[in-house]
């Protein structure tokens, strides 16, 4: 697991240890009580001064932004599933153009915000076995359906929060590309998009909430 150490107290602790050894070696008699106090000081300085950060910082605005995107997208898609004659079903409608412009801006803002966090990248390390297992399983299913798709995002593209938001953006781009190509999304496809957007935003929110101190 990658960690960012912030060990301001450690050099001080090491210096204390050296001083203690020097005094002991020089013949100075250190009493039992003094030694006990020294151990307490040494360990407490270490505890207070050396904090390890394994995660990116929690950002409440990112959490809110993900929820807002989820709500507006599900609302938009639900109108298509409930009524295929609704203007949202047509890619060229004013409603669709307004939705795609505003949601793309929303996601772009979130991507930029998440990219500024200097936290550890999302390369899974010990979990790489899970990565290859999942990717092989999806690739097998994709080949059976005679499709040759690849993922648009990889895990090295920032913190795990940044990766999750890039996935949401890539999914959104795929949805717009499909809508533009087919001109009408259709109730069945819109319904599957609702599930996929819910999956993606749920995982993104789980990631962001897990970074809460």
């Amino acid at each position: 697991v990658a960690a960012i150490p912030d060990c301001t107290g450690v050099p001080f602790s090491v210096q204390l240890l050296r001083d203690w050894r020097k005094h002991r070696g020089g013949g100075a008699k250190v009493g039992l009580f003094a030694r006990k106090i020294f151990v307490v000081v040494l360990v407490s300085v270490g505890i207070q001064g050396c904090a390890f950060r394994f995660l990116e910082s929690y950002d409440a605005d990112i959490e809110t932004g993900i929820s807002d995107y989820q709500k507006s997208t599900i609302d938009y898609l639900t109108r298509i599933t409930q009524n295929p004659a609704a203007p949202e079903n047509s890619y060229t409608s004013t409603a669709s153009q307004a939705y795609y412009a505003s949601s793309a801006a929303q996601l772009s803002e979130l991507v930029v915000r998440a990219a500024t966090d200097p936290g550890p990248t999302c390369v899974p390390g010990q979990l790489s076995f899970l990565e290859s297992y999942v990717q092989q399983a999806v690739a097998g299913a994709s080949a059976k359906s005679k499709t040759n798709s690849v993922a648009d995002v990889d895990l090295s593209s920032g913190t795990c929060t940044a990766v999750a938001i890039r996935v949401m953006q890539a999914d959104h781009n795929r949805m717009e590309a499909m809508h533009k190509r087919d001109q009408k999304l259709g109730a069945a496809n819109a319904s599957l998009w609702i599930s996929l957007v819910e999956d993606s935003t749920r995982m993104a929110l789980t990631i962001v909430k897990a970074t809460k101190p």
Partner: protein
Amino acid sequence: VAASGDIQQILESMLQAASTTAAQQWGDVKTSVTQELQILAQRISQIGEGLASGDMTQDDAEDFFAVVRNNAVENIAMATTLVRAGAQKIVDAALAAGQAAINKLVGFALV
């Protein structure tokens, strides 16, 4: 001798707190990751059904599979985050236990 005994006592408190926290964290990670993998499998099945019924074109299926692959990447990102958050809690619990052991040793709230 007394000094190394004190360190041992503090260390044991920290290790105890760490192992208890680790067991709780792993259960949570396993549940979340398993649920999301089951959902991914369900989405793959829905794409297959859509193709078979003619509700979606081959190009649509291509896009949907790319999205499933993206979401699989996000699943790994989620698992990684939950494991790291667990590790963070283990370290925090160990440090809190160390603080408690020190305070007990000195008899007042030093840290």
